[in-house]
């Protein structure tokens, strides 16, 4: 009788692992697989302070790259704090990430509330002079938005760009999180009611935001995975108020993320300023047929 129960339980668990809900949820992984043909990138937000923690994070990113050779960094906004004269670009960007820049890593920035709008013309940010834009890396299309102001023209552009995308993965990055459990800013609900219908309609897989100076991974909302990674230089220690939406968080030190997209899987790690892994997991995206039925 006991053996029958064990067999039934095992079968039940095996079935559960195949259901879309479980496939979509992140689960912890020991290490990033570092597959040869995968897309590897790093993510950091709210970093441009020019202070020691930013430099420490930059060093950790460079160290991580020796074993995880990413060639792209997504910057989630507030890439520059305070004065933004030419010398500040050196102190707050070029020096902290000098090792990465020298290795040919390309940074792609989104505008935060502290960024001068003219920074979109700064070549190393690879924004092409645009407030919002899209680019492709392997089978991932990234959509970069300016959520300081979600004007009708940008909304129309986003709708059209999503519609045209037939890429396997669709990843959005914008500064202000539409889901966040941090106390200072939290979820921007006014943005959510505008953006979420589009994200759901076109089956966006993952959203990265900053603004709140913490790391947080949210439980998937309407099939979409949300990350807040806004402690690349700034930190608001102890700011997260975990709720039913919280999957994991880290608000004790600066952090950044390492991400690897391989086939239908996206592996991720959140790494602290001291190099400790504070969260990890894998997201398995639904097959194309299931995406269209969302």
């Amino acid at each position, binding site marked *: 009788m006991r053996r029958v129960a064990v067999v039934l339980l095992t079968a039940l668990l095996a079935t559960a692992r195949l259901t879309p809900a479980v496939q979509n949820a992140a689960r912890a992984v020991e290490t990033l697989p570092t597959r040869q043909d995968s897309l590897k990138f790093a993510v950091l937000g709210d970093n441009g302070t020019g202070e020691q923690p930013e430099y420490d994070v930059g060093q950790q990113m460079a160290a991580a790259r020796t074993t995880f050779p990413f060639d792209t960094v997504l910057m989630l906004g507030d890439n520059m704090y305070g*004065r933004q004269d030419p010398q500040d670009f050196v102190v707050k960007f070029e020096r902290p990430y000098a090792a990465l820049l020298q290795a040919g890593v390309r940074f792609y920035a989104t505008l935060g*509330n502290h*960024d001068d709008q003219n920074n979109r013309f700064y070549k190393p940010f690879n924004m092409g002079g645009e407030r919002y834009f899209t680019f492709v890396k392997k089978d991932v299309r990234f959509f970069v938005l300016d959520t300081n*102001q*979600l004007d009708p*023209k*940008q909304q129309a552009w986003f709708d059209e760009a999503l519609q045209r995308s037939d890429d396997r993965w669709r990843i959005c990055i914008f500064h202000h999180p539409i889901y966040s459990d941090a106390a200072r800013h939290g979820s921007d*609900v006014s943005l959510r*009611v505008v953006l979420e219908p589009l994200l759901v309609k076109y089956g966006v897989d993952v959203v990265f935001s900053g603004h709140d100076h913490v790391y947080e991974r949210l439980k998937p909302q309407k099939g979409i995975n949300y990350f807040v990674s806004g402690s690349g230089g700034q930190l608001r220690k102890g700011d997260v108020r975990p709720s039913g939406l919280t999957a994991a968080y880290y608000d004790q030190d600066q952090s950044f993320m390492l991400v690897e997209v391989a086939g239908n899987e996206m592996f991720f790690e959140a790494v602290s300023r001291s190099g400790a892994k504070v969260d990890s997991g894998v997201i398995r995206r639904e097959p194309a047929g299931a995406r269209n039925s969302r």
Partner: protein
Amino acid sequence: MKPHALATHHVGIHRRHRSAAARLLDRFLHRYLALPVGVGIALVWANTTPERYFVFAHSLAFLVNEIGMALFVGLIMQEIVEAVMPGGALHSWRRWSLPLLAAAGGMLGSAGFYLAYVHGHYESILAAGWPMACAVDIAAAYYVLKTILPRSGALPFVLLLAIATDLVGMLIIAPQYPTIAVHGGGLGVMLVALGIAGAMRALKVRSFWPYLVICGTLSWIALYREGLHPAFALVPIVPFLPHEPRRLDLLADPPDDDAVHHFEHEWNTLVQVILFFFGLVNGGVLLRGYDTGTWALLLGALVGRPLGILTAVGAAVAAGWHLPRGLGWRQLLVAALASSSGFTFALFFATGVLSTGPLLAQLTIGAVGTAAGSLLAIGAARLFRVGRFAR
């Protein structure tokens, strides 16, 4: 907001037969309560069930902000046209020169403080919000001064200052309307609208409906196609309506058969309902959305404008101008503080320039917060024993 549009009109015979509830509704609609009540409900709603609130607000935003508010702007335009026509309060240079200088000083002060704060915090992205810091809530200024200094020169002084300031503000924000695309062809449609309005004026059409329905609609389409804020649709049409000079003795306008005043009487209640919804749709903001823009707006409106007004008037007096009769420096200080509330106009300017997002939220909180200017004026009047606090 246009004060005389808010005024209780003289329907004494009917009033005697009104119930207390009807009188309360009348007071609500005519005494500048509709918009603050709308904002109050929106703030509570947005901070309790935000998703429901923002879905509701987004669904009504176009109808209220782009269409409904055209009536409100039309009434403001009526005020301005009647003030500048012969016999109007702004027609004489001697009458409006000092308020105009004060308005310029107030704008420089509020914009200067706002921009200095924003740039001091290296958030240049907020610079576009400076017109909101300049906005003056005409009705708030009117009722505060009517309460404190009912029979002094402060009332027309501040009203002229407020009208001039908001007129400039409207001219600045009209081309900044965030739109998807400019379709073109609007100029031709506008010329047709103006041609029809001119023909009706020549034919002495006194009913306001054809002007507003036919010409107003065409004008709205023209502005929308050109990517300009369509809430300004009645601005080019109102001058064609028959007018009589505005005296700025706002609560005492006698009933008459003039087409424009008829327009005002008919639409006042409707505009108040629109303002209620304007407050409801735009006033809701998550209170934790405060940030640099909030403080910049408060500083610009509550400190920069009064200082700018006092400095400009001081310079004018030093250059030989005279203060209006009954307006001393203490009264002027109270008047300057009474004009520091931007509330309705600051909200209107914000929605006219900014789109959904945290910048709008920051400035909305600041705009609502400028209502504190009315309290500052009352506090200053008590402190310096001005007007009704003199005894």
